[in-house]
């Protein structure tokens, strides 16, 4: 069984994370922003799994489970907020929701 | 224990007055009046039945003392002490507190209960300030006094009340912070020197420290107190706060709260740091003299009657600052007398302005004039107190000013002479007030306003009697104050004479070489 080197394994989560960040910054639609956040969370989860495999510890997988539940909770709250925002401002544009500016 | 009740009675009265409003608005007023009367009775009881003065080693003679542990780990106790000085000031506090309740009877119509709660808590805090002999407790009482006052201005004040109340709060909190830092510094310096952590006044007296440290800590206290006094250049919160506060608030602010600054200087600044204070005295006296003249000139220029009276306070309290730092018996007695007389006369002037505003709905003197024709009693009383405020001999303010200047003249004739010029400017602003408001051609619009009613008239009559009494028969006041002032002077006397002999011997050595 050939093992992929640890350094190369990290390329994927880094790419995923960068994609997620770019998505948050570049997309204006709130749903896409939420999806991008999910991608970032998954990238972080992937790093936990890789690290668990690398050191042969179960902690990494446990942490991934935690991230998963967290992500689920976060999505439910996030979607609820988005629905409220959609109801209040008839748009999903994140820049339109700037009522908290100073 | 009776001393603690002096503070607790108004505090409890306040707590009762708030809900009592739901029964009837006047219930809150009666409860407030009753708590003032009870407080007065307690004070007289203490004064009459004290078993001879209590001697505290190194601390002088006291009428009554109380010491209960509070936070013993940090050396904090509830230490209260009453001497002649605090007695007089508490008497003034209770008297003006009573007056404030009476004059608010018709002026305050909204949230009566909350108003009286704040009023009584301010008074409780003030009495605490005059009694506290533990620096932590003092700071505590100082803050208790300020916060309700903030609400009095912010909630029951006039047009510009938010600005004024925030300004008041920032100035007093800023100075309070400075005082807290100075207290902590003093306590820590004391612990380093002796190894005991204490906030007790008597133990902190005579703390040894190097001159530079002493000067810095002294300045911390000094600035905190002269903001409250107020002295130039920290006086600018006063005209706004006084002008915007409801009448009772102005009376308490001017009549009592300013005196806490003077009291702090007397009780803490000079006795705790005698050497630094005496080195600093010329500058402090200069500030006092500047305040006398500057306040008077500004008062002359005002068109808002309440602002005029407020600036006149700056001028009068300049005399107090001058007297305190002259630090001899004459000047100190004068300063105490000036505090009392100013409390009475300026309080009465604020009541006059309040009564005018209630009737005319303006404080602008350009819209007044000729009020004598329609309001003869109010005008006569207003003129009487304006004349008291310009220092007419035979009335209380004159005794205060004269003694202060006489005491100062021995040390710094120049300051005394400039201060005496303030008497001329005082005439200018007092008479312009009389002229613009009460004299001159009458205005049609003001012909139908009603004159003073019985309640106000009784209060003003009592204040008139007080100011005449202070002017013609002031000796009882001096006798009471003498004990307190002796405490303060004895606290500094040893250190000062030691220092004087040190420099004297150094000079002698220098001369012999």
């Amino acid at each position, binding site marked *: 069984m050939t093992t992929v080197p640890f350094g190369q394994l990290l390329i994927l989560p880094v790419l995923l994370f960068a994609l997620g960040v770019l998505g948050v910054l570049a997309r204006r639609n709130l749903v896409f922003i939420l999806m991008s956040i999910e991608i970032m969370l998954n990238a972080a989860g992937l790093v936990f799994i890789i690290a668990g495999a690398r050191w042969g510890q179960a902690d990494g997988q446990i942490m991934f489970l935690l991230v998963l539940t967290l992500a689920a909770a976060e999505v439910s709250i996030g979607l609820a907020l988005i629905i409220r925002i959609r109801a209040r401002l008839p748009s999903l544009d*994140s820049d339109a929701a700037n009522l908290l500016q100073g | 224990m009776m001393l603690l009740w002096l503070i607790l009675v108004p505090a409890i009265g306040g707590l009762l007055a708030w809900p009592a409003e739901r029964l009837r608005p006047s219930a809150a007023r009666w409860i407030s009046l009753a708590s003032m009367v009870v407080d007065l009775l307690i004070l007289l009881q203490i004064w009459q039945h004290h078993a001879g003065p209590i001697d505290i080693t190194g601390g002088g003679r006291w009428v009554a003392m109380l010491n209960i542990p509070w936070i013993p780990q940090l050396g904090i106790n509830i230490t209260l002490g009453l001497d002649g000085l605090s007695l007089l000031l508490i008497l003034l506090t209770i008297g003006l507190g009573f007056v404030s309740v009476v004059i608010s009877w018709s002026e305050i119509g909204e949230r009566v209960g909350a108003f009286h709660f704040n009023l009584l808590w301010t008074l409780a805090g003030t009495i605490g300030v005059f009694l506290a002999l533990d620096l932590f407790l003092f700071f505590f009482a100082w803050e208790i006094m300020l916060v309700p006052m903030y609400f009095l201005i912010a909630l029951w004040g006039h047009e510009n009340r938010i600005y004024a109340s925030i300004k008041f709060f920032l100035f007093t909190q800023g100075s309070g912070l400075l005082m807290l830092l100075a207290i902590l510094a003093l306590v820590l310096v004391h612990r380093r020197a002796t190894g005991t952590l204490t906030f007790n006044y008597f133990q902190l007296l005579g703390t040894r420290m190097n001159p530079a440290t002493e000067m810095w800590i002294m300045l911390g206290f000094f600035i905190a107190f002269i903001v409250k006094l107020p002295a130039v250049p920290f006086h600018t919160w006063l005209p706004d706060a006084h002008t915007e506060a409801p009448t009772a608030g102005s009376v308490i602010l001017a009549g009592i709260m300013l005196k806490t600054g003077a009291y702090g200087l007397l009780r803490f600044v000079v006795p705790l740091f005698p050497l630094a204070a005496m080195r600093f005295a010329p500058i402090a006296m200069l500030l006092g003299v500047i305040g006398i003249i500057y306040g008077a000139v*500004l008062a002359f220029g*005002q068109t808002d009657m309440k602002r005029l009276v407020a600036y006149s306070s700056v001028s009068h309290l300049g005399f107090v600052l001058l007297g305190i730092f002259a630090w001899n018996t004459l000047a100190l007695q004068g300063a105490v007398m000036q505090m009392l007389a100013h409390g009475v006369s300026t309080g009465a002037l604020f009541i006059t302005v309040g009564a005018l505003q209630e009737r005319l709905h303006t404080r602008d003197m350009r819209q007044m004039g000729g009020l004598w024709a329609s309001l003869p009693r109010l005008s006569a009383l207003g003129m009487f107190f304006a004349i008291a405020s310009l220092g007419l*001999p035979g009335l209380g303010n004159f005794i205060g000013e*004269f003694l202060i200047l*006489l005491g100062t*003249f021995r040390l710094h004739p120049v300051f*005394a002479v400039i201060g005496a010029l303030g008497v001329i400017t005082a005439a200018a602003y007092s*008479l312009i007030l009389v002229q613009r408001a009460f004299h001159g051609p009458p205005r049609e619009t003001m012909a139908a306003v009603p004159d003073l009613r019985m309640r106000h008239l009784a209060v003003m009559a009592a204040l008139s009697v007080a100011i005449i009494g202070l002017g013609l028969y*002031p000796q009882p006041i001096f006798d009471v104050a003498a004990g307190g002032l002796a405490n303060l002077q004895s606290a500094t006397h040893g250190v000062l004479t030691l220092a004087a002999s040190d420099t004297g011997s150094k000079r002698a050595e220098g001369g012999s070489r």
Partner: protein
Amino acid sequence: MMHALWLVPAFPLLGAAILMLSAGRLAPRAIALIAVLPCAASAIVAITIAIGFITAPPPGHAFSQILWQWVAIGGFDPAIGLYLDPLSLVMMLVVTVVGTLILLYATEFMAGDEGYNRFFAYMNLFVAAMLVLLLANDLLFLYVGWEGVGLCSYLLIGFWYQDAANGLAARKAFIVTRVGDTGLMIGLFVLFTHLGTLDIQPLMHRAVLAWPHGSNIASLAAALLLLGAIGKSAQLPLQTWLPDAMAGPTPVSALIHAATMVTAGVYLIARMHVLYALAPHVQMAVAAIGAATLFAAAVAALNQHDIKRILAYSTISQIGYMFLALGVGAESAAIFHFMAHAFFKALLFLAAGAITMRLEHHEHDIFRMGGLAKQLPVAFWSFLIGSASLAALPLVTAGFYSKEMILSETWAHGGAVPILWVAGVVTAFVTALYIFRAVFIVFFGEAKTPVVGHYGIRIMLPLTVLSVLAIVGGFVETPNGLGGVRLFSHFLSSVFGHVPLAASATETPLLVVASLVSLAGVALAWLLYLRPAPRFVAWAQTQAVVAWRNFFLSGWGFDWFYDRLIVQPFLYLVRINHSDVIDDVFTGIADGCRGLHGLLKQTQTGRIRWYAAWLAAGSIVTIAVAVIR
């Protein structure tokens, strides 16, 4: 009987208190009664005490009565107490008697005024304050009376408060005299700091012991006291308030000028004469100020139109004579002239009031009067007697004897003094000229303003009594050449230790000169104002002369000068600093904070992507820094 002394100031004080507290609820008749009775009562007490004092003088020719200890702290222990010696006795008598007459007159003069009650409350307080001033045994208590008369003059000058001009005159009087009062107060500081008491008699003893003749401290103290005296007595350069003080009702003017207030300065210097003897330079200054004032004021009086202003300047001038006498060490002459002046000046003012109250519109301008001798004979004769006494017409008037005494003492003082004497004599001439100018213009010629109304007994009686006093009041002290009666100066000798002048060769010529100049003044007034030559009238209208006349009319331009020098700069300062420049510092701090806030809040856009971008950028920078290090 001496122990009733405290009643003398207490009666008018009580009267004032009753009137004030009654607050206008009394009937006018009751007010009039309460107004006059206390003062009359204290006059009676004063006379009784005086009789007792003269027949059986108390030990040391002085009586003192301590009422209560006022203040006692740290060696400073002034008492509220009274001190009666011949000096205060004479003053007390004059004040109570003349005061009573003026009050009686005023009850009719002021009838129908809406402030009737207030007026008499103030008047009684005025008399009480003056009596306190005179009788005080302690300088601090004296200061109470001193400021008290200042206050009452303020209240009474501005009595008709609805006219803003009266208020201005009243404030001017109070503030100008307060400048002097402050000098007096500082003088008290000096005296107490160096001598340790303010009780007048011990003070004088200690001063003599502690200070050598001509010492600087003595001069300083004397000069400061002099400043106070100048302010109250309206001498140069603080005289400007007195002519404006005519804004008050005429009885007030009579009281201020004759009995109270302006003579306070004379009294103070006479009372402190021991101090002035220690300070010869200051004493010389007193004489010089007196001489300058008496001349300047007389010239100003010569150019006034308003009958009351003529009398006001005349008072300044006559007080100048008293200062001159004090300056040459002739205190009893000064007090003698004070007494004579009180009689004839009260008479003149009351007569002037009797004229104006009968004219339509209460006319004050002498050029709109005329021919009143026939229409108002009572006023005419009173005014004439008062004028004769003021002009010091020889032999028959009180003014002649008192003025003569001052002039001969001034001459006898020697040294550089002839100039003072010359000023006195020249002014005696001008005095006769200006007062008879008024007499001739007002009472002779053709009538210009109709006369209304009539006099009651309360006007006639004071005029009559004062007329008699203005004539016979001088016979208590006559020069050596004219009988050499010395009752007055003998009586005062226990206070001043001053011996009347011995007969000398120059005396008779001086007497003749003094008599002639006043007669010459009357004669010239006759020529110029009753039968004016056309050339004189034309000359008086030339431009240069008119300019000078206006200058003198304005009282030598002092008001203009003070206005530019003090009042305007002060007002300017007040105006530019109306909103307190120091507050700008604090509002500046607040504005700075607000500005900073404005900058920082730009970053709070409310756009979630911006925040995320900042978050990401911040994380990257932080990680980069951590990695690179």
